[in-house]
Every structure is written in C-alpha cells, then in structure tokens.
C-alpha cells in the first residue's frame, strides 16, 4: 500500500523553484532516502509534506487521502511526524517533559478542554513518554534540562519527541548532522531498531552516504528541486547524472 504520495509537488520562492514537480510514492514499511547537493530542495520537500509550507502547485496524499489543505498539527495527528535539520526541542523543560508533551498530543489529540483536570489523571502519557525515552537511551537523563544535553543527545531527544507522536511515517532531516562518528553509528542503530520495533515508514534526508546506505531501501536524488534519479542504492550510486549533479554542486 502506498502510504505517502506526492504528485507534481512544486514550490517556488519568488523566481527560485526550490521543489520542481516532484512525484514521489512511499510504500508502507519502506525506508527511502532523499539525497542531493546543498540547496537541492530536500528540506523544502519535507516542509511541504508536513504542511509547514504551502505548495505552489501539486497534491499530497497520505493514506489515500489528500492532506494538501491540512494544518501541520492535523498532519501530525494523521500519523506523519518529523525531525528538523536543527535540533528542535523545548530547551528549558526537562527531557521527560519534552517527551511527555509529544505523548500528550498523541494520546489526547490536538486540543481538549481539560484545563481543570490534574495531570495526575494522565498516567498513560507518562508511561508512554518513559517508554520512548528508554528506547532512545535517555531515561537516565530524564530530569536534565533539555538545553544542558550534549548535542548528540539533543538530536536523540528530538527523535524521541518525533517518535512519541506515534507516527506511521517519520521524516528526518539530516538526523546525524554535526554528530561524532560514534554518535552517528548509535543513531543509525537507533533508527534501524525503531523501524523494526514500531514498523515505521521512513523518509530520511541525509548527506552521510554511509548512513544512507545503511538505512535506505531506495534512494531518490534531488537536483535543483527535481528528481533526477531514483532506485536501489547500488543503481543510483553508479548513475552518471547523479555524479554529475554532485560534482556540479561542489563547483558551484
């Protein structure tokens, strides 16, 4: 079953076409990786799918239903969650509260009139937040203020927030950027584990080819907003157009 499908998805900023007629279909359970040189439009693509940006043209369908007119929180409630290119967390709250907020939204939906009910009544929110923190090995640091975490842990916390939203599709924008080789390896293991355990479908934007080859079943190459190649990792690697795009990107 196709989980996510975009048709002719286009976004222009003034004269610049950042995403250019992208047709993308992701099967349930699949892991795809979107690669491409700097400025290729990878983050913009994620922003379009998660409804952070309005497309200039095109359609987005999730679970066979158009989400093109949705608000971002509605998209999340439908089962799409994301991480940002810069670790986006709640800096002054504890690690545990960071996860609880996401669990709360997952368990209770986008809005409720429960402002006179004590949080004590929401044991399931705490339990699921703990479970997620345990899964990303942050349970021991749960009382630490999030901004005091080392960088690698912050990114893991962001992943925990994204996972606590109980998604079917997880979009990750360069989750290992800025990480040490050890942290990168740990993150890859983490991604593979949650993919197995939660049966997630994954769209990964990543520059680190080792990570891409480890995680992706299929690779999509973006260049100047358009898809120039698509296929299994080995196929794409040998594609002359892809090599050209990357070399061109280095020169520019």
């Amino acid at each position, binding site marked *: 079953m196709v989980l996510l499908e975009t048709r002719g998805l286009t976004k222009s900023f003034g004269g610049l076409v950042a995403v250019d007629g992208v047709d993308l279909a992701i099967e349930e359970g699949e892991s795809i990786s979107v690669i491409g040189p700097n400025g290729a439009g990878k983050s913009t693509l994620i922003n379009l799918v*998660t409804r*952070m940006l309005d497309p200039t043209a095109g359609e987005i369908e999730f679970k066979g239903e158009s989400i093109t007119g949705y*608000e*971002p*929180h509605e998209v*999340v*409630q439908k089962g799409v*969650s*994301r991480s*940002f290119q810069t670790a*986006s*967390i*709640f*800096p*002054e*709250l504890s690690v545990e*509260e960071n996860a*609880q*907020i*996401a669990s*709360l*939204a*997952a368990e*209770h*939906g*986008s*809005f*409720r*009139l*429960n*402002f*006179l*009910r*004590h*949080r*004590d009544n*929401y044991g399931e*929110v705490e339990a699921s937040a*703990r479970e997620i923190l345990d899964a990303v*090995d*942050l*349970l*021991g*640091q*749960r*009382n*630490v203020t999030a901004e005091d975490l080392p960088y690698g842990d912050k990114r893991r916390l962001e992943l925990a*927030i994204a996972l*606590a*939203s109980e998604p079917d599709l997880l979009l990750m924008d360069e989750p290992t950027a800025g990480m040490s080789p050890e942290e990168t390896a740990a993150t890859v293991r983490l991604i593979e584990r949650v993919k197995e355990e939660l049966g997630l479908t994954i769209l990964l934007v990543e520059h680190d080819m080792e990570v891409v080859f480890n995680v992706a079943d299929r690779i999509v190459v973006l260049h100047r907003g358009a898809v120039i190649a698509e296929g299994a990792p080995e196929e794409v690697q040998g594609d002359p157009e892809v090599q050209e795009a990357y070399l061109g990107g280095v020169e520019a």
Partner: protein
Amino acid sequence: MSDEPTETADAAEDGGAVVERTRRRFPSWSRAVESEWFVVGATTVAVALFPWLFARAPVVSDLLNGYQDLASLILIWGIFAMGFNLLLGYTGLLSFGHAAFWGGAAYAAGLFSTQVSSSPLLIVAAGTVFAALLAWVLGFVALRRGGIYFAILTLAFGQMMYYMALSPLSGITNGENGYTDVEVGQLFGSFHLRYPVPGLDWLLGTWQYVFVGAITVLCVALAYRVLNSPYGMVFRAIRENEQRAEFVGLNVWRYKLMAFIISGSLAGVAGSLFTIHGSYVPLESLYWTTSGEVVIMAVLGGVGSLFGPILGAGLYLYVENITSGIRELTVPLTDVVLLDGFGAYWHLILGLVFVAVIVLFPRGIWGLFRDVAAGIRRLGGGRR
C-alpha cells in the same frame, strides 16, 4: 519542581538504578495532589493574616504603615498580575492591552450593578463573563500575529476601548469623569461589605476584605490547577518552541486562545472587584498605562512563578501609595529625619526599585526568595 534532585547521566549506565529511581518517583505524583492542598491552604493563611500584619499588628504594621483598604487593593491587582502572567510567563505572549479586560470588566461590572443586580457575586460574574468574551474576540484577531505585532495589536485594541469609553459611549460610561453610579449591595443579601466582620475585625477587617480574599484564594487555586493540568505543560511548550509544539500535533492556535481567555478572565475578576472596592470606575482603568503597570508588576515579582506577580503588585502599590505619602524619611521607629519631601519622588523610587530588582534579581522578587530559601536549606540541612 526545582527542589527535586537533579539526576546525572551516569544513572543510565546502571539498569538497576533506573528501575529503582523509576519506582521512587511515583509517590512524588501523589505528593503533587497534596501540594495543591498545601498551596491553597498556605494562600488562605497568608491572605487571612495579611491585613492584620499590614495594618494592625504591633511593630510590623508601624514599620509598614499599611492600611486595610490597600490590603484589598493589593489582592485585587495581585489577581490581575497573576492572570496576566499566565500569558507572559507561562505561554510567552506579551500582551500590552490587558487594560481592556481589567477596565472592560470594571465598566461591565459597574453598569451591571446599576442596571441588573447589585449582588457582589453577580457583579463579579458579569464583569468576568464580559472580559472572557472580549478576550475571545480580541484573541481571535490578535493571536494571528506573534511577538511585537501581537503586543501592538493588543495595545491598539486597548486604546480603542479607552477612546470608545471616553467619547462615543460617554452616554453610558460617563466619559472622562468615570462611571460613578456603581451600586454595591449586600453579600448574600445579609453582609454589608463596608461593615467589620464581627469578632474577627482585628484580623480581617471588613466583609469586603473577606469577599476579595476568598476570591483571591479561589483564583490562585484555579490558576494553580490550570498550570498543573495538561494545559500548563502545553503553555510552556508553546513558550519554549511554538513550531515544535505544532509539530507534535498540538493545535497551538487554540491553546494560545485558551491562554488568552483564561488570562483575560482573571483580569476580569480583578477589574470587577476593583469596581466593588472603589464603588467607582475611573476612565484610566482602560488607559494603556494600566496595561503597562501590570507588565511591571509581573516582571518585578518574577514571571517564572505563579506567586511572584502578586508580590510584584504588592510592592508596586506599596511604593505608589505608602511611600508617596511619607513626607519625611526617618530612621525607622525614631524621629531622626533623613530626607524631607521624600514622597514626591515616588515615581523615581519605583523606577529605582524596578531597575535594582531587574539588574540584581532577573527572576524577580520571587526568584530572590527562592534563592534565599535554597541557600538556607543548604546551610542548615547539609547533605544526607
């Protein structure tokens, strides 16, 4: 919350330790419920003792020079500042138009008292409902913008209300003279607000103080509960990172609107009480300086806490009303004159107090108290 010991990263290494810590933390949740009772109880005691300490107790009241009427006024502004701070301190939204809710409710309460009923409880209810509806409408418009635009939009709305009361609606509001026809009846039809409480007047003073005090405790309990409900967490999440809050699936806009309505309603409770307190609604209650005053009170007291703004309101009104009345500054409890014509400088004094607090204690008076308390605990308790 900050009283909990901070655990370090190494706890993760030892699986056994994690399990143990997990188990240990559960009782602390039941303690949270107890602490709600504790907060309400402590507030009740503080509110009950306040007018006595402030206006009548030996030595203390001589030092403070307080009086009964100011005690009620401090509580009323305290409710206003506390409600305002739910928005500024907890949700991260700076409204510069809260005079609209305070003054709007004050006028609504005043009009209600002459036109419909003079029952104090109903007057407060009417003013509060008016403020809540007003907050809903204003929030609907102003919350579409963030940051400085939000502040300006709220300011503009507040000033619009001011000018409406000043002239187009002066037939109803009595224009620049303020609304003078307020009629305050008896509480539950039997307690005259101006009369002393029989047997307890040495402690509480008048029924009016009992009325204001009871509503203050109720408002504190309500605000405390809101902050300990899922809303409290969502508000702080929005303050910390609005985008992330939206992208965990929260309808940020509706939560912000709720924060605005709850905050505006508390301002409405306070504004209605202000009408009852003075039996009069001054036009300035809608003026932008009122919005500015509540910002200063909240920041002075400390925006990071529920009670800070109430202390801020107290200090502000104290300087405004007491310090301004002191003709000569003397060494406490003696007649030695330090400075003549002291009171005329109250604005300057307030400015100095404000700057001193912000520079020395960025977390406000409440933050200072917390630091002192933590210091004493460290000195006295040591480590176990």
